[in-house]
């Protein structure tokens, strides 16, 4: 068992500042994850040069990989920090912020563009109001449930966006996750009433044709969401929609 845990963090004091590396050593304790390690660091934020510094800034929420808050790059791989168990990581553990989003400070980035994209693709089911209308939505088969539930687990964490070569500062591509959500809502018995609206939102600039089929997204998704299925189906559906628009409008 090692005595210490060595940490190397890519820090940045504010959005327009230069990034810099800082290294830390913490006493070993079994069953640390990267978040609990950063939490321990806060109690005594001293770097390996012996300087007492401001503790590393990061985002955290549930600590059990259901909220998507703590996404960062750990030893070169984008993932949630809470489920990155230190005992399974090579040292020094290298922490970097996601590169596809603006750094706020240290490991905390601004993922607002992902949420804005959900507005763009009409990622909801339209209901008349939050009051009871005394009937359920139409029935859904257990087989359809299994398919849909998979997409409903998307926690807007950013892993798929990080690994997507088409999602970057030079492109307006919405990225894989919003496309998965558009697919989910168009599969709902009443959500599908607005399928055309969702498809249209993905037929313009930054839409489905920006996908280059790298298929990195489905590899990186911590919830194994079948993103490439959704992308393929939306791609086909947008073609059909285009034909409909041409001949039926």
């Amino acid at each position: 068992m090692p005595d210490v845990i060595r940490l190397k963090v890519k820090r940045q004091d504010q959005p327009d500042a230069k990034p810099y590396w800082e290294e830390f050593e913490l006493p070993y304790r079994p069953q640390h994850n990267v978040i609990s390690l950063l939490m321990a660091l806060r109690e005594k934020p001293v770097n390996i040069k012996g300087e007492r510094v401001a503790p590393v800034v990061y985002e955290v929420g549930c600590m059990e990989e259901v909220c998507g808050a703590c996404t960062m790059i750990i030893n070169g791989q984008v993932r949630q920090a809470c489920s990155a168990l230190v005992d399974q990581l090579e040292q020094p553990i290298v922490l970097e912020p996601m590169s596809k989003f603006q750094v706020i400070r240290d490991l905390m980035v601004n993922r607002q563009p992902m949420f804005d994209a959900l507005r763009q693709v009409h990622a909801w089911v339209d209901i008349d109001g939050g009051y009871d209308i005394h009937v359920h939505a139409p029935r859904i088969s257990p087989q359809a449930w299994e398919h849909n539930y998979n997409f409903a687990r998307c926690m807007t964490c950013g892993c798929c966006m990080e690994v997507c070569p088409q999602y970057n500062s030079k492109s307006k591509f919405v990225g894989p996750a919003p496309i998965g959500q558009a697919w989910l809502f168009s599969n709902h018995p009443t959500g599908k009433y607005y399928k055309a609206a969702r498809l249209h939102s993905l037929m313009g600039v930054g839409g489905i044709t920006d996908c280059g089929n790298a298929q990195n997204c489905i590899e990186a998704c911590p919830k194994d969401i079948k993103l490439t299925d959704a992308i393929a189906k939306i791609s086909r559906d947008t073609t059909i929609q285009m034909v409909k628009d041409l001949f039926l409008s």
Partner: protein
Amino acid sequence: MAIKKPQIIVIGGGLGGLWATIRIAEAGNHVKLFSLFQVKRSHSACAQGGINACLDTKGQKDSTWQHFVDTIKGGAYLANQPPVLSMCEDAPGLIRTFDRMGVTWSRTPEGIMDLRLFGGVKNKRTCFAGATTGQQLLYACDEQVRKHEEAGLVEKFEWWEFLGIIMDGQGRCRGITAINLHTMETRVFKADAVVVATGGLGLIYGKSTNSTNSTGAAASRVYQQGAKFMNGEFIQFHPTGMPGDDKNRLMSEAARGEGGRIWVPKQKGDTRDPLTIPEGERWYFLEEWYPAYGNTVPRDVASRALYKVCKELGMGIGGGDLVYLDLTHLDSKFLRSRLGGIMEIYEKFAGSDPTQIPMMIYPAVHYSMGGLWVDFEKDPETNALKQPSPRNHQCSIPGLFSCGECDGTYHGANRLGANSLLSASYSGRVVGESVAAYVKGLTDSVENVPEEIFSKEKNRQDGINQDILAGKGDENPYILHRELGELMRDKVSIIRSNEGLDAALDGLQELKARFQNINLDDTRGWTNLPLTYTRQVHDMIILAEVIAKGARLRDECRGSHWKPEFEMSIPEGKFPGDPEFEEYRAKWKANNETWLKTTVAEHSESGPQISYEKVDTSMLPVEQPRDYR
């Protein structure tokens, strides 16, 4: 004349806050929605097992009345009955609305919503989406709010922290101050009504099943400004939490509802691999002690049982504080489909597959039954809530409202599993309608309140921040927080004593004093986490005093609050009709004459001032002691 364009603020974007936002927006009002982070990441996402509603689709002749009885009894009769009655009666309609929103409910073979069994009840009335129900319900509300955002009715202030309310000369809530967590700017936001929906307070205990943002700080702040707090001493320990240094991750009650069994080896200190221990050498103690409910006894009963087995009898696994939660006898495909979410969590963090090896668990701090005191208006004809009414879910400060885990309305002394997703969503919908009714009745807008009232409060908040930033002492807020958690887990736990609670109150005084000596390692003016964290720690200590004081003064055992020195146990082997049981029942009723009352805490500089209020028990007479044998 009613004011035009009322300004409404909702603080907190979990199920309670989002439901309030939806109903307020649907009434045509503009809402400013505040959250520490993007609302989709709220702690509601962690809820796993399900949400209760009487749909009666399992041929059990279930009824909303039975749901009401189970809830009131589960809460040891401490909850006011009218709101609970309304919640149970309106639950099926709420579920239908979630269904229309597209929640991916698990389905039966004929395509309708499935129901599972949960703790403390005999009928299946828990609707679920795999084992990630809270996540799916939260996401449905998040999606609906996004729709309203797109329509211009909701403006989000994510990455803003609520610091305090602002009250006018008549003591009415007229707005808030908040700090931007990135720019560190404090700003005043005027409002005609404010809803606090900031969830639970597990972080007061350091380790819990809660997310890192469930500090109770916002509730503490309005309490310090004069809002009453109720039943603080009732803290739920969930029996099946994973041990952990950073968090006690929850293993849903659904695991037991679906057939999971709790056991320890009959042989004390047995260190054999559990799979090699034969049936006859396993002690299924919940099944033995409570034949009627077995593994699905209510949480307070289960947690005390696990505590007794481990701490009093020393029969935990290997002599430690752990017992087995065994799912290995169940079909693994069934488990993956019904409980997939928790299987994943256990595998990731404990490193073993629960379908093959029994899980190891122990009780963990989980939920606060108490919370901000809120009013309700009873309909004298139905004995349920009069809806809508501006009184429903209004705090003791006019114009301030609360919902969700943040208020203390529905669960009495102990909460039934799957009733929290219900109460959070339901109370959010109720308060949304109350606020809409309240602002319709207002005749003077916040715009008429003098500016000095707002600037004075902003200056006060800036002053607090500056004092903390200038601190030159030697205390680290993270260390103080860790010590707070250790103190609370040790002395205000599952089993309590007056001696221990006195020590807790002394310990809290000490922490408060040390707090004056803070030195921040970060004095930057950009995304300064230690500054806001320090304020949260202070406010957690204040709320911890409310919990400990209420516990110290309540000399009885009720629900999750247990002092063995005042225990009255059901005579063993005796049942209703037996003279010994009837003698017990008489003692139990006499105790209720003294203690069946709501604890109300009010802030003062010398600590929480405790008083009591009558409980409305008009629908279900308090006749049947809780008996799960």
